[in-house]
């Protein structure tokens, strides 16, 4: 009970620290001693309290907690240091990789900015960002009127008798200005880079037409005499990194990873973590070792089965027995 109370207060304290400092706090040496003490007392508890051995569901619950804590210790930074000392297993606990399209790399940047190397390389064939459809053009007048128009080339939307209509002329993935003699021409550059934009035509009720460019990256741009504020917003639905694992010059595995769909290879998980926000030419992967994970998952399974068995099945069957007797 004392250890449970302690963990409660530590959790509340940790919540105020923020994730980064809380992680350091809970992985510090005094806390490592606390975790070890927790595991030892759980084992002793199972030995001392006979009921825990006699009731399989209770045994599962408490043994499950031991598995979870042991797995967590094994997967921690200190656990990895211990693995190296005791078993000679040299694994990187966690870090990041930055890989450019068409390139491969095996260097992992650790939290303390040290660089370590994996025994294989990860290549990035392509990186893509997918957006929800339809995309929208948002229009707001100085008076606070508001319109939301789906982006569809050629579509013309009536705003009001005061503002007229707006027509979507072009959609650019990578807007650039090309100087052609004295003319400046807006083009969609197929080369590297990303500058999403719209070309729209505002047709005022008096018959005047004005062309405007709306940039996703630069919201809030408007001419001083414009009556309408335009913004182009897209919502990301998925980030996709097409990865391949290269060992001894051969491709040994391939996977398109997304958030929630990591790559597992060689004792590591590779996650879609971030990307090049300016040009979309590189991806940032999070690399984590899978040490201790099986123990944690087995512990979770034991804990859940034990709890359902003890609190639901046992209690219900007892209730049925009681009802039958009545």
């Amino acid at each position, binding site marked *: *009970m004392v250890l449970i109370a302690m963990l409660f207060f530590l959790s509340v304290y940790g919540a105020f620290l923020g994730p980064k400092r809380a992680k350091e706090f809970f992985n510090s040496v005094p806390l490592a001693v606390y975790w070890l003490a927790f595991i030892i007392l759980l084992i002793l508890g199972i030995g001392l309290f006979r009921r825990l051995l006699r009731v399989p569901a209770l045994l599962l619950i408490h043994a499950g907690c031991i598995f979870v804590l042991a797995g967590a210790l094994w997967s921690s930074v200190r656990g990895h240091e211990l693995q190296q000392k005791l078993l000679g297993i040299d694994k990187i606990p966690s870090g990041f990789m930055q890989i450019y399209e068409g390139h491969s790399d095996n260097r992992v940047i650790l939290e303390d900015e040290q660089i370590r190397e994996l025994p294989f390389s990860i290549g990035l064939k392509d990186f893509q960002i997918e957006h929800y459809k339809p995309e929208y053009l948002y229009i707001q007048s100085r008076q606070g009127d508001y319109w939301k128009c789906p982006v569809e080339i050629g579509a013309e939307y009536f705003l009001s008798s005061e503002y007229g209509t707006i027509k979507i002329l072009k959609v650019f993935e990578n807007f650039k200005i090309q100087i052609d003699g004295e003319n400046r021409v807006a083009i969609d550059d197929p080369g590297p880079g990303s500058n999403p934009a719209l070309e729209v035509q505002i047709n005022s009720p008096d018959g005047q037409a004005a062309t405007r460019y709306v940039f996703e990256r630069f919201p809030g741009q408007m001419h001083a005499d414009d009556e309408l504020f335009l913004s182009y917003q897209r919502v990301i639905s998925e980030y996709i990194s097409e990865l391949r694992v290269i060992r001894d010059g051969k491709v040994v595995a391939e996977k398109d990873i997304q958030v929630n769909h990591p790559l597992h290879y060689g004792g590591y998980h590779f996650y879609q973590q971030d990307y090049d926000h300016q040009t979309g030419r590189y991806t940032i992967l999070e690399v984590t070792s899978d040490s201790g994970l099986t123990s944690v998952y087995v512990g*979770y399974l034991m804990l859940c089965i034990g709890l359902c068995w003890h609190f639901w099945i046992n209690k219900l069957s007892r209730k049925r027995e009681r009802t039958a007797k009545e």
Partner: protein
Amino acid sequence: MEIKYTIQGLLIYITIIVYLLALLASIFRLKKSGQVLYLLGFIAAVISFGYRWYHVRHVPMQNLFEVFLCLGMIYPVSLFCRYVLRIGGQTADMLIGAVVLAPAGVIFSANPLKLPPALQSWLFVPHVTVYVLSYIFMAKAAFHAALQLIGKNTGPGDNLLSPEEATYRLICVGFPLLTLGLVLGSVWGKRAWGDYWGWDPKELWSLASWLVYVGYLHFRYMFGKKHPRINSIWAIAGIIIIVVTLLWVNLSRFFPGLHSYGATM
């Protein structure tokens, strides 16, 4: 404060009114009318939830507005408690239904949002569902604990459990759900963010609330019904920590973290 002049808002307000009418009918001992109104309130809550689902095109459990809409569908839990667990408190459930829908009706923004990549997982629905269910059971447990503290008991002819026993039984049902929510969240965190435990404030408060109930169950096992007031205070402390986990962590600037998308005001 945001009064919603929309179909969604209208559905929420109708549900709240019907739940409150059911409550009044029950208070004035119009049992049958109360039951019918409670069922009608539940149907309105389901329509409201379904409308939101149709509107946002994904299971509406993304933010506090949607979670509170879901919490408003308390009726099946009431029936389960009454007929399977032999636990009363339906009148209180009508009030709980109205109270949880109030923030959805007037506080939280109903602005529809697309699911960010991290939430596009098969674990999204089970994780939130088991938590919502466990919170309802724990809220009911706290209500019965409060009844025990003020000395109220169930009617002699109702064949229902005493408040102390009802609290214990409700926690016995809710605790595995609370654990399952924590475990599913952890497994999901591993798949989405690379770590099954990120020391995020929401995770730590969830662990704290779980530990309160771990403490309750150990204390109840050790002392049984010898200290019913302590048992009840423990159950009430549990729901207070749950409220902190559900609301304060998402809404306060004290706790920036991975679960920030849950807050949309």
